[in-house]
């Protein structure tokens, strides 16, 4: 019946494209606006947290850790309240992950502390005997990229109207203002850390990757 189609590459290609494209339009578009709406109380990431989030991505933490608590008792018992769509409204990209070689981190800020993370990232087995997670010593050497984090915050504010600088929301301001804010936040984290090198570096005005990462992890609640 459709033999002509197999002799006509143009219409064949158009046909394939329409059949293929259909499902995406039907499944993704209808709830797009609804899914983008934040839950009350959800706030955008501060610049330091964003810098930490970029490190989380740089080292592909999401290759082993999910950020999605499913609505089962076994999961809410282990990780806390199940996830709501609006909690992710400021997550670009989303970091749900696809596998749990390690535990979920959606609400890790509720039950782990700065010094725990410090020990854990330096030597996972010291706090979790039997852990197969690698140590991330380089995060104690590398300096966090605050500029790119600021760039990201500025971009989402400008392009996607993410509500920085609104009442009850994190401030962003100019680059210099943001930088000051980052130093203040980082100093609170550094104060809770044990490593003298990190403290020394901070005195010099350097924020190591680990500080930003911990700021991000503490924020996950």
């Amino acid at each position, binding site marked *: 019946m459709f033999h002509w189609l197999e002799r006509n*590459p143009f219409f*064949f*290609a158009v046909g*394939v494209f329409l*059949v*293929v*494209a*259909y*499902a*995406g339009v039907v*499944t*993704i578009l209808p*709830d*797009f606006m*609804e*899914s*983008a709406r934040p839950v009350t109380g959800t706030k955008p990431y501060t610049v330091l947290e964003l810098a930490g989030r*970029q490190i989380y*991505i*740089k*080292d*592909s*933490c999401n*290759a*082993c850790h*999910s950020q999605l608590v499913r609505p*089962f008792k*076994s*999961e809410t*018992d*282990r990780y806390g309240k199940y996830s709501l*769509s609006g*909690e*992710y409204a*400021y997550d*670009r*990209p*989303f970091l749900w*992950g*696809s*596998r749990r*070689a*390690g*535990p979920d981190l959606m609400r890790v800020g509720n039950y782990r502390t700065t010094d725990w993370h410090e020990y854990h990232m330096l030597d996972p087995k010291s706090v*979790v005997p*039997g*852990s*197969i997670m*690698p*140590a*991330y010593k*380089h995060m104690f050497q590398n300096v966090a*990229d605050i*500029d790119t*984090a*600021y*760039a*990201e915050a*500025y*971009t989402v504010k400008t392009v996607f109207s993410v509500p920085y600088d609104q009442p009850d929301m994190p401030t962003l301001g100019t680059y210099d203002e943001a930088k000051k804010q980052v130093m203040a936040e980082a100093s609170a984290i550094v104060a809770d850390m044990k490593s003298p090198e990190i403290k020394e570096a901070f005195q010099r005005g350097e924020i190591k990757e680990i500080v930003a990462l911990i700021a991000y992890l503490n924020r996950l609640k």
Partner: protein
Amino acid sequence: MQANNALNYDYSVAKCFTYATILFGIIGMLIGVVIAYQLAFPELNYLAGEYGTYSRLRPLHTSGVIFGFLLSGIFATWYYVGQRVLKVSMAESPFLMILGRVHFWLYMILMIIAVVTLFLGIGTSKEYAELEWPLDIAVVVVWVIWGLSIFGLIGIRREKTLYISMWYYIATFLGVAMLYLFNNMEVPTYFVSGYGKWYHSVSMYAGTNDAMVQWWYGHNAVAFVFTVPIIAMIYYFLPKESGQPVFSYKLSLLSFWGLMFVYLWAGGHHLLYSTVPDWVQTMGSIFSIILILPSWGSAINMLLTMKGQWGQLKSNPLVKFMVLASTFYMLSTLEGPIQAIKSVNALAHFTDWIPGHVHDGTLGWVGFMTMAALFHMAPRMYKRELYSKKLMESQFWIQTTGIVMYFSSMWIAGITQGMMWRATDQYGNLAYSFIDTVTVLIPYYALRATGGLLYLIGFFMFTYNMYKTMTASKAIASEPQNASPMAA
């Protein structure tokens, strides 16, 4: 069929991509074996400092095998099969020849930069779409060149009716183009703010929407890279190698259009019990089950093509590779829908059963079919017989053993993990802490890695066999019609 031999097909681009397939196959699978062993023996994480941890290497493994090994394989077979089913030589058009070469070299440059950036940790975190925007643009350019090459060759074809493989190559081109473009929509932050790294970008979609777009992409990258072009290959190479006509043309039509329509819906099964709308999840589940029909349609069509000719399994290892590939395709397209059932997914999601499932598809179906295709092409491209049948036989059994070890250990590991996560004691409290569910898996991780190692060893045997075929094998006078000539 005389016209077939009268034409002088040009295989220079197909040969280039054949080398690339082998090169990226070795790199991608080697990294795969390393990271598999890292799970069993965490000390292996420290072989290359910051650049050798499991988490840095994992995207290199996935992208390396998908976009290095497999894409090269798809391109290699395209530059071989395309000319033959369209009955036109690339050499008839200088433009297409240049385009083919540009395609290859741009692709190689892109791949090398991609490898370097992934080692450096530059990426967007989206699975199988990790590359940052400048590379995304380069990918689009390479892809458009491939499209020009496909439709250019179609434009000057002598055989007016498009053979089944052509449908699948066209679908691969269109499907990936659409998926890649939409999933990689991102805003470069430097150009908006004037601060930070110039290559950094932020996704156009947030949270749940980003997840939906990503798994619409992620699942269908599987469809349009791991399935559609591999079906293109098997529809050409199995009938050609065995000398049997395709069992049913109607079945191939039904399977093709069925696959095209159904596949794109199934992405939702990666997001069951997540925060995407419930109906999208249910649709994902339902369409995943329906997907068995067109998938098995193709696979059964291939198996029935061998009807009455099963003796060839004994005499020709290439047929054996392809028939087992087809069988693994049936296995993984049954396993996938089972995992997509919501109640099964509640157990299976986030466990090692999922990578187990992926690998019986990729190792068994994709890997076997690609290697068989290159084996079939070699005597025709290099005018020499295949170097060693014996080596091919041992490769087949070593790799098959590897695959079985791989998926059986991952089945057990995944289900164990899923059961332990939800296990409770008599008072209803969780019975295990998370680390218990990790340490229990270490023997299975070791077994899995060893299965992967066997597969890699088989791939080295394949490489050696191909190398010897190209350089040292006995020359053949005329092109073989069907079964590839091979020395014992």
